[in-house]
């Protein structure tokens, strides 16, 4: 067996921080596009779900990578508590290492998202003093979320010694996946917690529907676009490696039939995480998009679709992180 230098904590981090960064970007842009940024503005509810989820996801994800640090493991193993906070060395310098730039960006994103979430706490609706602050933080939140989302791909892609990762397309794939999973997080939270009587209804069979909700429709339609882009990124990622003679093409065999990660990649990520959600979402979005029918989707379906997208996002990180470490350059 191969020894994995970056295992589950890193995979979990890439997934959670990606979703958190995506939620921050989606929430901020939805707030800005919704106009005003005040309480009760269009899409305000959606923006709030994203704003509250982002710092939680970012902080849990970041806490996970500390578990993977050699110094942290040694601190626990030998009781050498001085090593426990060795990772603070990350913030004593900044250099051109993707991890260094990423750590600073992550720190900025966490601070900004915590402040941004704070502005969404219930306040005086008549005298909303947070409005301008909320808008200002949203302007920062959009680029910070994108930077954190893209850096995870750059982090892996920076090493010629890992041919499967060493592709410029990987950063794009991770970015789109981050925004898509962030959006799915918002949809999931909304489907589970939003019990607004005006927007949900119950039919005779007892199924709960989300009805005539502009926010949900726009988010779901955007998600379709994102998954479409993700499919393009997957295609380009594979094609790029396949058309390169040598190590990248050789490494890509691990994702093709007969390879160690093939089933998980194609079934767990492409089918379950991309194609299935696309098919279901199309079924509900197309009537509204083409025939201008009122948008309505059962709550259970909404929960299912967003869960599938989240599972797909995790499987993508899992497959890529492991596949990159079990493949290597050809020759010596």
């Amino acid at each position: 067996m191969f020894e994995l230098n970056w295992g589950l904590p890193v995979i979990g981090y890439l997934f959670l921080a990606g979703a958190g960064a995506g939620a921050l970007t989606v929430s901020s842009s939805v707030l800005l596009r919704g106009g005003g940024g005040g309480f009760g503005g269009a899409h305000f509810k959606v923006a709030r779900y994203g704003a509250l989820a982002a710092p939680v996801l970012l902080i849990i994800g970041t806490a996970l990578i500390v578990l993977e640090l050699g110094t942290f493991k040694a601190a626990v193993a030998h009781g050498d508590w001085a090593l426990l906070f060795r990772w603070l060395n990350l913030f004593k310098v900044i250099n051109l290492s993707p991890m260094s730039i990423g750590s600073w960006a992550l720190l900025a994103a966490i601070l900004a998202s915590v402040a941004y979430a704070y502005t969404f706490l219930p306040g005086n609706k008549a005298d909303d003093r947070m409005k301008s602050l909320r808008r200002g933080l949203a302007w920062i939140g959009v680029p910070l979320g994108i930077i954190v989302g893209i850096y995870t791909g750059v982090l892996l892609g920076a090493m010629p010694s890992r041919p499967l990762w060493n592709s410029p397309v990987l950063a794009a794939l991770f970015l789109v996946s981050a925004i898509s999973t962030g959006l799915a997080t918002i949809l999931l939270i909304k489907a589970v917690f939003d019990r607004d009587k005006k927007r949900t209804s119950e039919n005779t069979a007892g199924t709960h529907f989300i009805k005539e909700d502009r926010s949900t429709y726009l988010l779901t339609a955007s998600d379709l676009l994102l998954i479409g882009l993700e499919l393009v990124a997957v295609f380009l990622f594979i094609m790029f490696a396949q058309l390169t003679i040598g190590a990248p093409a050789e490494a890509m065999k691990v994702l093709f039939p007969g390879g160690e990660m093939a089933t998980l990649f194609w079934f767990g990520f492409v089918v379950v995480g991309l194609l299935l959600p696309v098919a279901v979402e199309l079924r509900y979005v197309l009537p509204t998009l083409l025939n201008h029918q009122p948008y309505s989707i059962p709550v259970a379906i909404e929960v299912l679709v967003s869960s599938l997208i989240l599972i797909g996002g995790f499987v993508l990180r899992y497959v890529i992180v492991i596949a990159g470490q079990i493949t290597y350059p050809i020759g010596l």
Partner: protein
Amino acid sequence: MTEQPKNLSRRDAIMTVGVGAATAVAAVTVASEGLAAKDRKVHYAMVIDTRKCIGCHACTVACKAEFDVPLGVNRSWVEYIEKGTYPNVKRNFLPRLCNHCSKPPCVDVCPTGATYKRQEDGIVVVDADICIGCKYCILACPYNARFINTRTGTADKCDFCLHRVKKGLVPSCVNTCQGHARIFGDILDPDSEVSKLIATFPVTVLRQEMGTEPNVYYIDADHTDERDGERMGQYVRVDTFLPYEKRR
């Protein structure tokens, strides 16, 4: 009237971001200064004459003893490349260690500056007091030269026995090598043994296509691996003596 404070706060925010970015750029510029290779007076290198290697692992053991390297990992080791079918068979030996690259990918990815190429002699070292053990360098090294030292939790690797070299001694593996297969010296000095060997014999480096510009040169090295064996229809088996199934 309500517009005024909003604009101010936005401008303030932009200013803050701008100042932060400028600081970052300044820090990066400072960090990359003084790394010009042409200023270097001494650049240590190693020549490994595999014709003289008998695969005795004395270097592995000497290194292990010198640094008390934890079980299961090595700073320096010897690979066995076994190939052919009887009676046309051969087992070749390939001593390995950190290549102390002129363009070290491990240094490029280190987020804390714990690993760096020494300006004075070109040795790539890890500062165990700074390293956080993120393992980025371990993944970035195309030579498997790095590992996590379980005692300190930090990245560890060959440092050409810096503590010995500083006192004018050769590295421990060179000192112990029975066949004089490992030769250590200054590659910038034309009269050094390494320079003369490189000038005399055809030499190769490992994974040249990675662009790392290694400073460990091999004479008559066998670069064959299992994949070559499949292609050539030959039996090839590589024993790396690393905790991995295959070379990677």
